């Protein structure tokens, strides 16, 4: 009776943006009387940070501090159409729509500033701290607030912008499967370490080392939140969760969190994350979408680690003690591989 350690590896890519296209997202931005901006969307913030990432993208494009931007979502009377938050499309699709809307609003803001400064709008730049100035002459400047107020209360301009992002729907060939499925791919590789108890069949994930390529980490904290939580979900998918423990039978289906098993805080393995950023050409500031792909490499990495530890292949998820023990019995005991 012993604990066996093993390491398993997996690598994946993940299609970003709704498959095949045909899924528009729209954004509206306008300046308020105090020169701050409201972004109106119908996107959903499920906890992934939709409001925050669109806020940063809007601020970056407008050229104003992030504190000058407020994101309002989701109200179908005020927010324009959006397909929704799924399919790793939120950041990619809505981010692009917000950039388009912000560019239009920024152009009006600069025209208003140009009129106040009596210069050409094409000579103006923003400093990202709430000022607009003549390129190369920081002294000739006006605050974004003053420009916005001049526009609204003196010049009679509306500082507003409209944005939409739509990739046309791709055809799919029935005979070959030829299609244009995605905008871009995110990537990941994962090595997990497990301990397998050959007496109880229990598998404990003891360590995870990963590299995730996310295009651009638009907000590194939110990226980390997704990767850490998603890897936890992957570990949970691998060794814990199912609505039908004896699939395809429907017996013993869990009905609450006492019977639907998931790893608790004590079961968490340290997860050492490395983030790589290769900007996607059509992603907002190169961003892809880390939210969905982060769980995926963990599932196969865990079964591969179990094989490495005791020589048992588990090809049906989840990895339960029962399956491990049955595998060990069939094998005549643990046969550690130790290949990694």
């Amino acid at each position, binding site marked *: 009776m012993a604990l066996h350690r093993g390491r398993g590896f997996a*690598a994946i890519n*993940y*299609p970003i943006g709704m498959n*095949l296209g*045909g899924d*528009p997202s729209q954004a509206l931005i306008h300046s308020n009387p105090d020169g701050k901006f409201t972004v109106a969307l119908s996107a*959903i913030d*499920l*906890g992934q*940070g939709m*409001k*925050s990432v669109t806020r*940063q993208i809007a*601020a970056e494009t407008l050229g104003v501090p992030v504190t000058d931007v407020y994101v309002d979502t989701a*109200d*179908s*009377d005020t927010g324009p*159409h*959006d*397909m929704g938050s*799924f*399919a790793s499309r939120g950041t990619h699709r809505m981010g692009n729509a917000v950039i388009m809307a912000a560019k239009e609003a920024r152009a009006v803001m600069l025209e208003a500033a140009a009129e106040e400064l009596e210069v050409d709008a094409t000579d103006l730049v923003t400093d*990202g701290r709430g000022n607009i100035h003549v390129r190369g002459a920081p002294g000739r400047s006006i605050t974004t607030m003053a420009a916005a107020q001049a526009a609204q209360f003196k010049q009679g301009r509306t500082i507003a912008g409209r944005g939409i992002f739509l990739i046309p729907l791709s055809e*799919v*060939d*029935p005979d*070959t*499967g030829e*299609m*244009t499925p995605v905008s871009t*791919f995110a990537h990941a*590789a*994962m*090595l997990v370490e497990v301990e397998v108890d050959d007496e109880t069949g229990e598998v404990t994930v003891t360590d995870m*080392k*990963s590299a995730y390529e996310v295009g651009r*980490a*638009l907000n*590194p*904290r939110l990226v980390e939140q997704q*990767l850490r939580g*998603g890897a936890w979900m992957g570990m949970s998918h691998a060794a814990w969760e199912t*609505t*039908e423990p004896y*699939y*395809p039978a429907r017996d013993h289906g869990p*009905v609450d*969190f006492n019977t639907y098993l998931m790893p608790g805080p004590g079961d968490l393995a*340290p997860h050492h994350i*490395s983030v*790589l*950023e290769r*900007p996607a050409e059509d992603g907002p*500031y190169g961003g892809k979408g880390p939210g*969905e*792909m982060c*769980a995926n490499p963990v599932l196969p990495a865990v079964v*591969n680690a179990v094989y490495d530890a005791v020589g048992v*292949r588990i090809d*049906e998820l989840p990895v339960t003690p029962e399956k491990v023990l049955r595998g060990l019995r069939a094998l005549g005991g643990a046969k550690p591989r130790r290949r990694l």
Partner: protein
Amino acid sequence: MSGTLTDQPMIDFRKEFFADERDDNLNEVGKPTRRQDITGHVTGRSPFYDDHLFEGLLHIRCVRSPHHAARVRRIDLSAAERMPGVVRILTGKDVPRNLNTLLSLLDFGIDDEPVISTDRVRYRGEPVAAIIATSEARARDAVAKVVVDWEPLPHVLDVEEAIKPGAPVVLDIYPSNKFIYHGKYDHQKLRYGDVEAAFRQADHVIEGRYQMSPIEQAPIETCGAIATPEQNGRYACYSATQALFFSLAVSSKVLEMPSSRLHFIGGTVGGGFGGKVDSIHEPLAILGAMLTGRPCKCMWDREEEMQVGAPRGAERWYIKDGVMRDGRIIARSFTGYFDSGAYTRLSSYAIIKGVGHLPGPYTIPNVSANVYCVYTNRTPATAMRGFGITGVDFAIEAHMDKVADTVGLNPIELRILNAYRDGDMKAHRRLAKNCALIECCQVVAEKAGVKLSPAMLAASSRKDGGGERARLPISTVTDEHGLVRGFQGGSYGRKGAKPAPLSGISQTMPLATPTASQSPPPAAAPQQPPPRVGSMRFSSISGFRRR
């Protein structure tokens, strides 16, 4: 967390990779800015849909099937109607258009699922009536008083049992229990090169079978919605939906109500993970508000969330690889079965997404796949994080481990050896770009102290791709296996229809009419691929098929 052997940081940003492709001097993008909504979340002040309070709120609870499949002979509501607090009982007859398929919004698929079932149920938990009462407890009490005369029918729960001849038919419109793709085949095909010829040349042929389990999205906030009459004949709906206009459009369709009369409010949701796209609660809550004139809440309890709510569908994959002694994979074929459960929901679409993803992040010169969307008598499956990809990635990467074992190669080196690179042709016939699989493998190897050969350390996604690797196969073997007849071209189209805005919901949804059943068994595969005459659009947001 601590206790690591290597004392590595918990997170690092490897800015040295692809630095020449990035401008890192941005003002706001790339900053760890605190979330706009976090204070509300951590102090419990953020308003979720169920935090909106209404005077006289009514509660909706469903009467559900205890059988996997049954005919409904009779529903006796008389005792339930007399229960205290019962205001109204909804049945299928109350739903103006009691048939929908979620992807009809993308003009994809045939309406197959009632909001409230009338004569037949196809999974355990399917609703046949909805009690509207003054409290949730009273609604539950009344649910227990509904007497349904069930006639249990044969059922099928396993995907491969379901597609055998003579299996119980789940949905009459799909008599072989398989979704029909493009009005043409009972599965989605991927054909690239000639896998059979390559298997004959390979040093090793490695096969595997993989089963992904059904999984619950398990958001803390269970799915639900509250609808209330507004002025001017409008209804407001506070919802936990992940897809505001998707749910609005579904409601508009099944209630036959112009979308302009619906005002959806949401946006702050207590976890979704794919489980809040199905738009089950919004139509019921709005219908309740329409018929009672009072605010109505429809919300799952935890048991419903776990057993009635659509899970991540189970998938079964068979993979066969042809591999050379040095580890190069020269052919890979897949047979996949998605367990859609009793209705289509989003499974048919997940398969298209999955097929576009094959054969995983590798450049393999011969690839083939047959992937089936199979109906069984279980809770319909739906989206979940990694939809269409998670299950097949599990299969591919577990299989890669077996390949590494067979050829005696380090599992990380096997991936780098076969990894796709910029400029490579992919099996769906588009060039790869913006690749980074090799770099991810190298970083993990370095962190884990796994020694790679100099060639593997020198490999890059940005070099040695394209060229020969950009070429399409000289010939691709196609076949008509699984050909069906009697489904209209594309199943989705109606020639000459006017384009309508996606959620300009008053439009008539294009209705395809499946007129007959499946064709006889497949014809033999022709040796030469037939000439292509322009591929067929599998769907259209505008309501008609385009060429």
